[in-house]
C-alpha cells in the first residue's frame, strides 16, 4: 500500500483508507462528531495550488475504492469507482474502441474522482468539451456523512438538480465522490500533429486563434514559449484517417504559416500531447504557474496587458490554448510574490478582461495572500451550498476558497 507522505510539508495525523462507500460515510460521520477535518485524496497529483494548511487531522486515501462497476460499450456509458486510476479506466475503454476525450496529466497516478474534483481541462476542450459535459451520475458522501446518488446511467437525464456536474471542479469541498457514471465516445481511428515554427508570441496566438475559429475540425491547438519573446505552435488533428490527412494537407496548402514538423503517427502524436500535460503538471519545486482565462477574442489584449503588468519579471514562460482563451504563465517564485501579483492584477484592472487561478506554487509563496479569487456575490451562494453539504466544514479546508484556516494547535 502506498504511504501518504506529506502535503505541503505537513504530515497527516492519520490516514484513513476506506474500501467501500460505507467506510467513507463512516469516516466522514466520525469526523463530524469530532469536528475534525478531512483531506480526501486521489492520486495526489494536484495538491500544490491550494491555500496552505498547518495541520491535516485526517487524510482519506481513496485509491482503495477502485474498479469499474459497469461498462456497457453499446450504451456508451461507464460507471467507475472514484479511486480508479485514469489509465486503468482508459485502458478498459480502449479495448472496446472507446475513450473519454479529455486531457489528464499523469494518468497512471491520477484517479477518476480527482480528475472530476479538480475539473481540469486541457487543450482538447477546444473541440471535445470537458469532463463536466460527460458526467451522467454520481454516488457521493456529503460533508455531514449523508450518502446519496444523483443523475443516472443514461446519456440524457433531467431528473432533479444536476449535482454531478456541480461536483466537477468542486475540489472535494461539498462531498467525497465514491463513484461516477460517465458518457464515453468512440475513439478516433487516427491522429496526427502539425508544428508551426516559432514566431512572436502575440502574433502567433492570434494566428492560432484565427485558424481554430475557421476550422472546427481541429482537435487542439496550442502555442508555447515565452511571454516577451517567441512561441511555437502545435496543432492536433484526429478522426478517420482519410479526412484527417486531408485536413492536414488542406491546412498546409492553404494557410500561410511557417509549417514545420509533422508528427504523422497516432502514437507519437498522442505521446507529444501527453508529455506536454505531464510536464506542465509536474512543474518544478520553485515554479509558480497561473492560469489566466479570457474570452478568446480578447487573448491578444490580455497578452499585451499581462506583458505590461509583468514588465521586468523575467523569464516568464507561457503555454496557451488561444481558441479557448487559456493562457498559462509560469515564473520562478522569487521573481514575484503572490501579494505583488494580486496588486498588479488590480492595478492594471485585469478583472476587466480576465480571471485567474493559481495552478501551482511553492507553499511559502501561497501563504502570502489569497489564493482563490471569486466575486463576492457568487461566493456567498457558493458558501451557502457549502454549508448545506458540509455544515461543520469537515471537508477540505483551504480548498476552493480562502476560508480562515482552523488553527488547532
Amino acid at each position, binding site marked *: 500500500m502506498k504511504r501518504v507522505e506529506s502535503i505541503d510539508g505537513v504530515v497527516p495525523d492519520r490516514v484513513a483508507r476506506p474500501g467501500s462507500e460505507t467506510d467513507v460515510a463512516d469516516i466522514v460521520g466520525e469526523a463530524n462528531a469530532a469536528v475534525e477535518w478531512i483531506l480526501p485524496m486521489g492520486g495526489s497529483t494536484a495538491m500544490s495550488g491550494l491555500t496552505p494548511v498547518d495541520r491535516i487531522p485526517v487524510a482519506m486515501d481513496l485509491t482503495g475504492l477502485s474498479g469499474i462497476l459497469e461498462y456497457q460499450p*453499446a*450504451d*456508451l*456509458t461507464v460507471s467507475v469507482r472514484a479511486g480508479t486510476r485514469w489509465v486503468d479506466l482508459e485502458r478498459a475503454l480502449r479495448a472496446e474502441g472507446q475513450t473519454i476525450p479529455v486531457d489528464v496529466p499523469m494518468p497512471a497516478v491520477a484517479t477518476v474522482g480527482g480528475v472530476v474534483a479538480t475539473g481540469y*481541462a486541457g487543450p482538447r476542450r477546444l473541440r471535445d*468539451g470537458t469532463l*463536466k*459535459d460527460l458526467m451522467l451520475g454520481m454516488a457521493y458522501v*456529503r460533508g455531514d456523512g*449523508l450518502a*446519496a446518488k*444523483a443523475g*443516472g446511467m*443514461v*446519456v*440524457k*437525464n*433531467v*431528473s*432533479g*438538480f*444536476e*449535482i454531478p*456536474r*456541480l461536483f466537477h*471542479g*468542486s475540489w472535494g*469541498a*461539498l462531498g467525497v465522490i465514491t463513484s461516477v457514471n460517465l458518457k464515453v*465516445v468512440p475513439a478516433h*481511428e487516427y491522429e496526427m500533429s502539425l508544428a508551426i515554427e516559432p514566431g512572436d508570441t502575440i502574433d502567433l496566438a492570434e494566428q492560432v*486563434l484565427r485558424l481554430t*475559429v475557421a476550422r472546427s*475540425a481541429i482537435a487542439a491547438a496550442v502555442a508555447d514559449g515565452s511571454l516577451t519573446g517567441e512561441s511555437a505552435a502545435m496543432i492536433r488533428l484526429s478522426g*478517420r484517417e*482519410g*479526412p484527417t490527412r*486531408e*485536413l492536414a494537407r488542406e491546412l498546409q496548402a492553404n494557410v500561410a504559416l511557417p509549417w514545420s514538423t509533422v508528427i504523422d503517427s497516432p502514437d507519437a502524436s498522442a505521446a507529444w500531447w501527453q508529455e506536454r500535460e505531464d510536464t506542465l503538471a509536474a512543474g518544478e519545486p520553485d515554479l509558480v504557474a497561473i492560469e*489566466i*482565462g*479570457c*474570452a478568446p*477574442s*480578447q487573448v491578444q489584449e490580455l497578452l499585451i496587458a499581462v506583458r505590461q503588468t509583468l514588465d521586468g519579471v523575467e523569464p516568464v514562460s507561457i503555454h496557451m490554448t488561444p481558441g479557448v482563451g*487559456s493562457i498559462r504563465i509560469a515564473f520562478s517564485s522569487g521573481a514575484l510574490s503572490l501579494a505583488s501579483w494580486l496588486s498588479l492584477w488590480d492595478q492594471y484592472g485585469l478583472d476587466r478582461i*480576465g*480571471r485567474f*487561478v493559481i495552478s501551482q506554487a511553492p507553499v511559502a509563496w501561497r501563504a502570502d495572500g489569497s489564493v482563490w479569487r*471569486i*466575486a463576492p*456575490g*457568487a461566493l456567498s*451562494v457558493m458558501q*451557502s*451550498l457549502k454549508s*448545506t*453539504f458540509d455544515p461543520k466544514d469537515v471537508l477540505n479546508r483551504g480548498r*476552493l*476558497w480562502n476560508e480562515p484556516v482552523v488553527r488547532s494547535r
Partner: protein
Amino acid sequence: MDRTQLIADLERICGPTNVRSVPSDLLVYEYDGSVDGAVDTERPLAVVLPDSTEQVSAVVKLASHNGIPVVARGAGTGLSGGAVARGGGIIIALTRMERVLRVDPVSRTALVEPGVINLELSQLVAGQGMFFAPDPSSQKACTIGGNVAENSGGPHCLKYGVTTNHILGLEVVLHDGDVVWIDAHGPGAAGLDLVAILVGSEGMLGIATKVLVRLMPSPDSVHVHLAAFGSMDDAAAAVTSIIGAGILPASLEMMDHLTIEAVEPAYHAGYPMDAAAVLLVEVDGTRQEVAETSDRIAALCREVGATSFRSAASPAEQELLWKGRKMALAAMGRLAPNYYLHDTVVPRTKLTETLQSVNDISRDFGLPIANVFHAGDGNLHPLMLFDRRRDGDVEKVLEASHALIHACIEVGGALSGEHGIGSEKRGYMELVFTRDDLVAMAGVKDAFDPRGLLNPEKVLPKGYVCGEVRALHNQAMAQKHGIHPM
C-alpha cells in the same frame, strides 16, 4: 398584503401596461404546454412582464418581502407544468426581455436576454457561420431562458450535447432579489460551477436574466438520410449498429408507423407509408468526412434489412425530411384529439425491449401509442393518443403512463431526458431516488431559496420541502448512527 396594493406596487415597478391581473388576462398563464389532467392548472395572483433585470429584481424583492411565491416563465411551451404558478404566486413572464446584447464571432458566444426565441438566435447568427446547438422541436416558440431552466435537448444533442453544454455564464436574480453573475467553469475560473447546478433547475434556484451561450460553427457539409424498415426491431438494430461502428451522427431520430400515418398526409415529407419505422439520420462535418460516414451508414442500414435508403438531394429536400419530424406532434391531431407525451430515457441496448413493453401497454390498455423519438440517445417519446371527452380516457392514460414509466425505470432508465419533472412527475421521483438522494437535492434548494418562494411544488416530491427536509435529514442521520428519535 392587500392584493390591490400589490398590483399597484407591481405596476409602479413594471409600468401599468405590463401587469396582468384580471381573470380573462390571466387565463393563458394558467397553463403551459403539458396535458391537463396530468398537470393541474392554476390561476396566478398576477403576471408581470418586466423589461430589465432591475425590474425583475424589484419584483422579486417585493414578493420576497411579502412572502409571495414567484414563477419565472418563458414561452410557456414546457411539458411538465413548470411554468404554472402552484399556490398562486406572481408569474414573471420574460418574453419582453428579448434582446441579443452581444455576439462575439471570434469567441463564438452570444450574450442574450432570457426571452430570446431559440430559433431566432440561430437565424441571427447564421450569417456569421454559427448556430445555437440545442434545438427542441418547439424552437420556433420556446425561449433560451426556458431552455436553460429545463436543460432542453433536441435532435442535434446526440452529437452536440444538451443545453448545459452550451451555457457559459448567467446573470441570475436570487430569491431575495439580489443579482449575481455566475461563470461556468472555464480557463481561470475559481470556485464552484454554479452554472452547472442552475441549468436544469426548473426556475427553482434563481431567475436567469442574461445568458452567455456558446455558439457552434456551422458545419461545411450536411447530409440528411431517410432509412425505412419493415419492423421497429430492424430500425432499432440499425441504431445499435451505427453507434456500435463508432459513428456519432449529428442526429438519429426514429418514427414509427403510426407517426408516419399522421405526418405524411399532412406534410408530404416523403416518408414511405408502408414502412413500420423510419430513421432520420443527419451527418455533418467536413465534406470528405460526411461523404465517407454517409456511405458507411447506408451500408449498415442495408445490412440490417432497410427496405429503402434515400438521401436528400438538396437543402430544400433536407428541410422537408426534417419538417415531418419537427411537426410530428402537431400532426397527431389527425389521429386523435389529445395526446400525452412521455420523455423517459433508457440505455440504448434496452431500446428493443422497451419498445416491446410500450407495445404491450398499448395493447393492454387499448390505447394507441405513437413513437417519435431521439433513438440515438435512447430518449423515448411515446405519445398516448386519446379523447379527453370520452369517459374514462384520461384515467386510462394516467394508468398506462404509470405502467410505462415503471417499465422504463426497471431497465435502468430515467424519468425525463429533456422535458423536466415539474409538477407532472414529481410524484415519480421516489421511484428512482432514495430518501437520502432527495434530501440532498432538497438541500440544494434550501441553499438557494431557504423560504421556498421560487417556483414552489415542483421537482421535489411532497415532503421534501424546506423545513421538512431538515427533519428528514436528522431522522436519516439518527437512524444511521442507531439513535432513534423519540
